[in-house]
């Protein structure tokens, strides 16, 4: 068998507000690096083909499936995981609090991804209809909740941030 030449590269990027550096195998996905080198275990390994959304992270403010993103591409990027959403003393974010209140969680495997997509949605500062929110959340699979409570939680957090009362 042909001998495999190992190939490493040093990646510098910003992870949850902190500048970091790692030398990684070029074959690693961003999921691999975040979990194995940084212990960011909120980044779940689900389908690993970009279908389920469990590995979602924010790269320069946009949601990406980190399983189909090479670790070396993180060079110079700002990456946020669920660990970066918590307050300084570990307080839940407004989105997380809304998920708790609306029981938008059961097993929790999809939750980190949903929370990060909700962050991306709410950071636009816009008010969305239910139909728009369903489309914006459609890149995540949840096998427990049936999605309704997740939609309610995101809506609740949206109206709170906008300082508005949700329509009855």
């Amino acid at each position, binding site marked *: 068998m042909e001998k495999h030449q190992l190939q490493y590269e040093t990646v510098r990027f910003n992870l949850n507000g902190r500048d970091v550096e790692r030398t990684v195998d070029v074959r690693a996905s961003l999921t691999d690096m975040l979990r194995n080198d940084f212990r960011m275990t909120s980044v779940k390994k689900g389908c690993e083909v970009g279908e389920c959304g469990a590995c979602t992270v924010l790269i320069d403010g946009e949601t990406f*499936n980190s399983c189909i993103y090479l670790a070396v591409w993180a060079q110079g990027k700002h990456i946020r995981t669920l660990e970066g959403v918590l307050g300084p003393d570990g307080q839940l974010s407004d989105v997380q609090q809304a998920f708790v209140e609306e029981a938008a969680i059961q097993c929790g495997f999809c939750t980190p991804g949903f929370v990060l997509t909700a962050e991306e949605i709410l950071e636009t500062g816009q008010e969305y209809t239910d139909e728009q929110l369903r489309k914006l959340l459609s*890149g995540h699979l949840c096998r427990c909740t049936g999605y309704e409570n997740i939609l309610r939680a995101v809506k609740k957090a949206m109206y709170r941030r906008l300082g508005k009362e949700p329509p009855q």
Partner: protein
Amino acid sequence: MYDIKALYQAKSVADAVALRLAHPEAQIIAGGSDVLVQMREGKRAGAELISIQTLDEIRGVSMDDDGTIRIGSLTSFSHITWDPLIQKYINVLGQAVDQVGGPQIRNIGTIGGNTCNGVTSADSASTLHAWDAIIELTGPDGIRRQPIHDFYIRAGVVDIREGEIQTAILIPKESYENCFGHYIKYAMRSAMDIATLGTSVNVRLSADKKTVERARVAFGVAGPVPLRAVRAEELAAGQPVSLELAERFAQAVKEDINPRDSWRAAKDFRIHIAVESAKRAFIESVKLAGGDL
């Protein structure tokens, strides 16, 4: 970990061309949403990759001096949808690529990758065909431009030659000026699904909005590669706007399309939805152009 034999990261377009010549067997990787998934499936396992993912010089939408709209090949679907130039001049393209996969995939996937795949179901491909897009390739001998129709050779095979990479997709002013279009994706699910059939129609009406000056229609999954239904286009050109014209236009697409039976849908069903989608997209396009139906 992916089963990658070697990864070559291009630092510029010129560097990418040099890497292509140095490693002719290597696979180009842009956004990764196709190549990495195929690697995981084992189809491209053990391949060498040339990554162009970080080449910001071919990312973004701009307008050339002659009014041509230039879409850098690495522009992601979501950036196309939100781009002011696209929204103003080719809104239908933004709508079409807003139906690819799901939100994260639209942040990852690139329009260059979508076309270089040579897949008939690509949501961008039918609209790009219907707007006479021009593919710009950069290679060792400089830049080569080619109509998108000629770029597609057969299913999964496009005309990228030795040392070349696709650097832009161009829409000339003559193609988009005063044109309005509509795209219909027929799929089983609203998200994370591949089109059973994709239909993209656009029209240009006369100044009084009573006559169709030009109508164009292209399909994905109506043949092995995306295709135009030219006989329907010829039939509609110069005709007065009417619902009866929409019906005749839609029936005429059957003369050019050649869908197949697959597990997704039967040939007869695809023909049925091609006619119906062509009619609906034609009516919608005429309305967008200011016509009365």
